[in-house]
């Protein structure tokens, strides 16, 4: 049977669509509906494809080959705010065609470009028959995010396997190929091999790979060193035989039981043919039990000293890595990290209170900056301070000294638990940051009255304060006072808004992204400075303007944006954009630098997969949207 010509061409269309989200997961029937209705048009470089003055668009376009630039047209257009490049697989104008209104953007081909065109009526029908496409159109960024998360899950399923429970099969716990020697080998050579491989347990197996015995580090002292065993004799004479073995499908729990029953620390894992597959040690199992959320939390709360907390702090990192690899979203992930870090900090404070008597003192330990916003990544240093009340009858100097000594110990303990001392000395042990409530008001008030650049910079750090330990009421009073000062102060808000607009999203006019031209970091984008900060700064202005008490960026956006009448879907898209950038930062810090190197925030867009690049682009577009709002509101 000969394929008809239309079938051949439809298949060509489908082959293309299947390579690009969201079409790659579109329902088969809907995809076919789309594939047979797409016409192809050619647009030479520098020609217009769709302009606002064309009225409601007749077609939905999908870039097939080439590059299309979306330009915002109209009064508020400022070049760097107004362009976005679309590449193969990307569609436009989703909003305008869904709403049947003229496009707000002009679309131009910046290269010779082929576009697929779908008549508007078919576009609307496609939304009806394809739930996935409808979701894509209504929650563009959210649906891409889901997809990216799933991809990540697949990509890191290997690592995800490390976050396991005691029901995990031993086969997925084995980290490396087994090290073993033949029974006839001299004990000396066997011991040398043990040292060389860095293993605490040497398996002995025959030519058929079937284990016949085992020698562990603890055996060496008792059986070799003390009795003066002749090292020239074969290892078979000194090994434990037969060894304890379990099949690959046995669970971690089985292994723990076996170890407990027989008082051994290693189990040899064999396959169905009894061939040696690997060695599981007691330590491997400990790691499993330790790195659960609840376990970490209880180990923090019951920690007796800083050493125990140091271990917990490493576990927090490991947990974060595992959760990341499982594709957990940035919002939950940062909440986990934040909750555990809070618990850790509280425990450090409690431990120090045993040595520093602050009984009867009204005070609170404050977190600033990203910690204050619940948005810590794992490479953030300390930003903290103290707020306290000076009783009328008390002398200020001695009380402050006591607080500072206490703070210094806490700061040092935090540092030893993986929160580096702040290079800018934004720490509670700094006398400038251990202040009474009146002094804090005085400090904040000066910045608000005279918003010079340094004052504004301070505001971006200190206005995000939050209580980690102590008297919540103190912070509550300070916050209320602060919001009453800023809410009715357009001049200060405008200065903050201007400051927030200092940096614009790194979206390119021709290329997708503008990367850093610093020769030290070619092709990278600093996702803190050119990503997260854009949302954080804009959200802070919203919060200060509308009296939102929350410090987290997303809460500020949702509540503050809602109070000035921004639609919930728009705010949700912005939150998604922010979360994605946070996720990329976390992923970069954990996965790409998981050899313990200090994570930075520089991500190479070229290293991202196509999907993530598109989401990143969309996330930046969301940043641009909220910046645009600030520009309009404050006439900047």
């Amino acid at each position: 049977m000969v394929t008809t010509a239309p079938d051949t061409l439809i298949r060509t269309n489908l082959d293309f669509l299947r390579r690009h989200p969201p079409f790659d997961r579109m329902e088969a029937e809907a995809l076919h509906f789309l594939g047979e209705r797409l016409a192809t048009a050619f647009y030479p470089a520098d020609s217009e494809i769709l302009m606002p003055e064309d009225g409601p668009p007749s077609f939905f376009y999908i870039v097939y080959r080439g590059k299309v630039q979306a330009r915002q047209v109209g009064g508020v257009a400022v070049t760097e705010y107004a362009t976005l490049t679309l590449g193969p697989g990307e569609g436009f104008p989703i909003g305008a065609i869904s709403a049947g209104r003229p496009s707000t953007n002009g679309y131009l081909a910046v290269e010779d470009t082929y576009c697929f065109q779908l008549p508007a009526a078919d576009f609307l029908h496609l939304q009806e028959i394809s739930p996935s496409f409808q979701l894509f159109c209504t929650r563009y960024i959210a649906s891409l995010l889901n997809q990216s998360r799933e991809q990540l899950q697949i990509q890191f399923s290997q690592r995800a396997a490390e976050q396991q429970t005691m029901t995990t099969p031993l086969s997925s716990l084995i980290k490396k190929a087994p090290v073993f020697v033949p029974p006839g080998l001299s004990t000396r050579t066997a011991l040398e091999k043990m040292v060389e491989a860095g293993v605490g347990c040497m398996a002995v197996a025959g030519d058929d790979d079937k284990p016949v015995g085992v020698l562990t580090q603890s055996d060496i002292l008792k059986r070799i060193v003390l009795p003066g065993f002749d090292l020239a004799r074969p290892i078979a004479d000194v090994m434990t035989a037969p060894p304890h073995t379990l099949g690959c499908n046995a669970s971690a729990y089985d292994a723990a039981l076996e170890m407990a029953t027989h008082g051994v620390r290693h189990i040899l894992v064999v396959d169905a043919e009894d061939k040696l597959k690997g060695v599981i040690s007691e330590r491997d199992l400990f790691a499993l039990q330790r790195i659960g959320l609840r376990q970490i939390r209880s180990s923090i709360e019951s920690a007796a000293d800083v050493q125990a907390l140091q271990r917990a702090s490493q576990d927090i990192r490991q947990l974060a890595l595992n959760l990341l690899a499982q594709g957990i979203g940035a919002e939950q992930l940062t909440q986990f990290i934040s909750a555990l870090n809070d618990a850790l900090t509280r425990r450090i404070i409690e431990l120090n209170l045993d040595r520093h008597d602050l009984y009867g003192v009204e005070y609170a330990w404050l977190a600033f900056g990203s910690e204050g916003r619940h948005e810590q990544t794992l490479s953030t240093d300390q930003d903290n301070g103290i707020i306290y009340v000076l009783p009328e009858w008390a002398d200020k100097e001695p009380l402050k000294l006591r607080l500072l000594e206490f703070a210094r110990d806490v700061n040092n303990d935090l540092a030893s638990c993986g929160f580096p001392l702040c290079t800018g000395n934004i720490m509670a042990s700094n006398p400038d940051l251990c202040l009474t409530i009146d002094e804090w008001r005085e400090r904040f008030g000066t910045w608000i009255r005279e918003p010079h650049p340094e004052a504004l910079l301070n505001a971006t750090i200190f206005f995000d304060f939050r209580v980690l330990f102590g008297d919540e009421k103190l912070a509550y009073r300070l916050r209320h006072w602060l919001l009453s000062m800023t809410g009715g102060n357009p001049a200060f808000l405008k200065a903050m808004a201007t400051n927030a607009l200092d940096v614009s999203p790194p979206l390119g006019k021709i290329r997708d992204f503008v990367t850093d031209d610093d020769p030290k970091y070619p092709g990278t984008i600093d996702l803190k400075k050119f990503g997260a900060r854009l949302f954080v700064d804009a959200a802070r202005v919203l919060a200060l303007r509308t009296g939102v008490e929350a410090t987290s960026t997303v809460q500020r956006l949702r509540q503050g944006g809602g109070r000035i009448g921004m639609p919930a879907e728009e705010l949700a898209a912005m939150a998604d954009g922010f979360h994605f950038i946070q996720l990329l930062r976390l992923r970069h810090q954990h996965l790409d630098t998981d050899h313990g190197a200090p994570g930075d925030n520089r991500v190479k867009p070229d290293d991202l997969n196509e999907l993530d690049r598109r989401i990143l682009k969309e996330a930046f577009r969301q940043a641009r949207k909220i910046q645009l709002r600030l520009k309009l509101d404050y006439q900047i």
Partner: protein
Amino acid sequence: MSWLSRLLPSSGPGLSPEQQASLATITRHRSPDLGRSHFETRYVVVNAESRPMDGGGQRLIGVGAVAINRGLLHPAESFRAELLTAPADALLGLLHFIARAPLVVYNAPFNQGILERGFEQNLGSVPALEWLDLMVIMPSLYPERIAGQASMDAWLSAFGIDRPDRHDAVLEALAVAQLHQVALARAKAQGLNTPQDLLESQTSRKWLRGS
């Protein structure tokens, strides 16, 4: 017209009454206005598939065609036929699909030659159609890309068009059609707004080259 047709009986291949009726409806198609703009015109890109014959020369075994209607390529507007079993019906089908639209080929001496021979042999006559040859037109439209005569592959890669599967006449026609879309964009920019303009430009170009 060709040496081959002279050797064959000139009385025609003996079409059935239905086939003759079908041929007659084709001739009643209104001939298109070649003075309208490209984007109001329906072009048909045709691509012949052939096989070497034992005695030398090529034998037409199939044809693929894709229309560019008002500048757009649409999967429904395409045609494929095999000529091995019922060549007359296949070619009648092609002529119905063409509907007297101006034709576009890459390499007319081959495509036009072999198709016209096919029409003559199987339908007894060669329909009068307008043929545009991108092999001739492209270098005059895009001299900055490729100055002289070049292979189809060279033009496809110059515009990043995927190389088609050589054994599928429709996919090859699709590639030529995408190339023709590129040609139309530049033709318009050069003031060659209609099929008529392109045909005239092609004639002068051929004349200049002395072919």
